[in-house]
């Protein structure tokens, strides 16, 4: 169907013209163009994935390549799914995931709603708000540890300025109760603008005449907000949540630089836990099984979510 117009041209043109459409056939061009990308992905994505599945069934250790490798079947999977420590990291991940999504949706939507009031200079301020999300999370995480220093850190100083709490009395990174919030705050600072941009596109896609019609029907502003604005922006908002959800489930660089998973293992999200198993304890087989479980989880959740998203879109 896609190449129909081309075929039509070739068929409709007299023979002497058709002959002038020369060179490689379209089919050959299509394959030549697509194949290199597919090959690269096979070599660097699919082959490693299959290898990971294979490794996950063994007790291989990458730091001792000469040791005899034994097949252990599904033992790695069993021990991961029954390990209470893994469930702790899942909880740390869930805390991070849920709170970042809640805050980013609230802040992002509110900002978009305000920006959509079309005040003067709104484009410039939008660009400024967006800046943090393009930065390197590792470098951002590193310099936030500086802001979070008790006593000398600017974050503690500002908090104490407004609340009167002694800036040396709390440590965002050192405290078991505060550390999970330390990572939520930085991630929200970075990514609320992402939700904002997408919501803004949603708000701008609502045609004015819908509100005008509601106005004529004497619908209150409040009612317009809940029956027009929210339903029309919802598909956009859900898309933003999908992207942020996948990204934050994989979160590594920001948290590793900010808290390193500490104190203890309070902020040890799954990626950090996986890194410890794979590259510190060198339990390669075990870590491979872990990686597969994570991949299946993200993939499964994302597929269910996309189905829900499509339903909302169809409405």
């Amino acid at each position, binding site marked *: 169907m896609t190449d129909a117009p081309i075929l039509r041209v070739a068929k409709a043109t007299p023979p002497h013209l058709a002959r002038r459409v020369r060179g490689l056939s379209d089919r050959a061009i299509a394959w030549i163009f697509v194949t290199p990308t597919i090959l690269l992905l096979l070599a660097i994505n699919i082959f490693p994935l299959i290898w990971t599945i294979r490794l996950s069934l063994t007790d291989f250790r990458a730091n001792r390549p000469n040791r005899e490798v034994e097949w252990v079947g599904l033992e790695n999977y069993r021990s991961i799914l029954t390990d209470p420590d893994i469930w702790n990291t899942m909880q740390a991940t869930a805390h991070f995931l849920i709170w970042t999504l809640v805050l980013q949706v609230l802040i992002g939507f509110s900002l978009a709603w305000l920006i959509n009031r079309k005040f003067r200079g709104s484009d410039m301020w939008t660009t400024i708000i967006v800046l943090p999300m393009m930065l390197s999370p590792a470098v951002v995480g590193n310099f936030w540890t500086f802001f979070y220093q008790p006593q000398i850190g600017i974050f503690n100083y500002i908090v104490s300025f407004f609340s009167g709490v002694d800036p040396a009395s709390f440590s965002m990174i050192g405290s078991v109760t505060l550390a999970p919030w330390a990572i939520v705050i930085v991630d929200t600072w970075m990514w609320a603008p992402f939700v904002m941009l997408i919501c803004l596109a949603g708000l701008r896609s609502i045609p004015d005449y819908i*509100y005008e019609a509601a106005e004529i029907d004497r619908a209150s502003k409040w009612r317009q907000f809940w029956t027009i604005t929210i339903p029309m922006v919802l598909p956009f908002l859900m898309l933003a949540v999908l992207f942020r959800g996948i990204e934050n489930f994989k979160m590594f660089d920001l948290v590793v630089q900010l808290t390193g998973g500490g104190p203890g293992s309070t902020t040890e999200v799954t990626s950090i836990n996986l890194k410890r198993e794979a590259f510190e304890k060198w339990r390669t087989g075990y870590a491979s099984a872990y990686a597969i479980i994570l991949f299946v989880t993200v993939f499964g959740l994302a597929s269910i979510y996309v189905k829900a998203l499509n339903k909302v879109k169809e409405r």
Partner: protein
Amino acid sequence: MSGASITEPSNGQKWVAGSLVILYALITLVPFVWIMMTGFKSGPDSISYPPKVVFEPSLEGYVNLFTTQTRITADQRDTLPPPANFAEQLVRDKGMIIVGPSKFGERFVNSVIIGFGSTALSIFLGTLAAYGFSRFKVPLKDDLLFFILSTRMMPPIAVAIPIFLMYRSLGLSDTHLGMILLYTAVNISLAVWLLKGFIDEIPREYEEAALIDGYTRFQAFVKVVLPQAATGIASTAIFCLIFAWNEYAFAVLLTSGTAQTAPPFIPTIIGVGGQDWPAVAAGATIFLMPVMIFTILLRKHLLRGITFGAVRK
């Protein structure tokens, strides 16, 4: 949009909305301003309490960032020739001498080589594939496109395990080529999705006209499609570049020296007794500045890039 529309917000509303947004933007800016200021502070100023907003600017951070230094005794200092430049003077005043350049320059150059190398390759492969997907019937097209996207769902650490083993046996560990190939593989999904969107928007009639004029398919692609897609290609390239520039997980796991980029290096800048914050801040400033400039240039296409072309505005 009609000016007197009943849906147009009132001036009062605009004023309140504007003030709130500007307040949020200013809060967003505090960390940036603070990090840039810290880059120009002396060591003691950077960790003083209360935090210093007014301070005497110093280039100590930048000098520390680019040099390695060693402590000397007062006697040794007396035997030295007078300092040749301001940097030496600055270091000499602290009782140290410069013994050579630091690794920051090298790491920064690595970031440039790997960033531009992988961007060029992703764009080259991505444009071809995107054109193929956009214009021709490719068997399993939708599956292939979804497959390309799903490669982004893997946590980087999960991908790094087999890549680490594969690169070790191929001799690609800690090489520029290895990192360029890896970043290309990660970026290609973004490149294909974005570029397909841009190429879909170019009317086919242009190429068809060129084909009738006697161009081959390939000539039509190079002479008609590419110039039309130039803006799309440029913004896609910037997104790929920013990703490669910012990437940390693969860099920290798969490189250690020769091919290490700046993100794993900056957090390791250590001074005497803990992190040398002015030097870290100087490094972060130099490293983040290009991305900030690109973001401002890209602002029109930002939305499209960050959503893989799903939202086009």
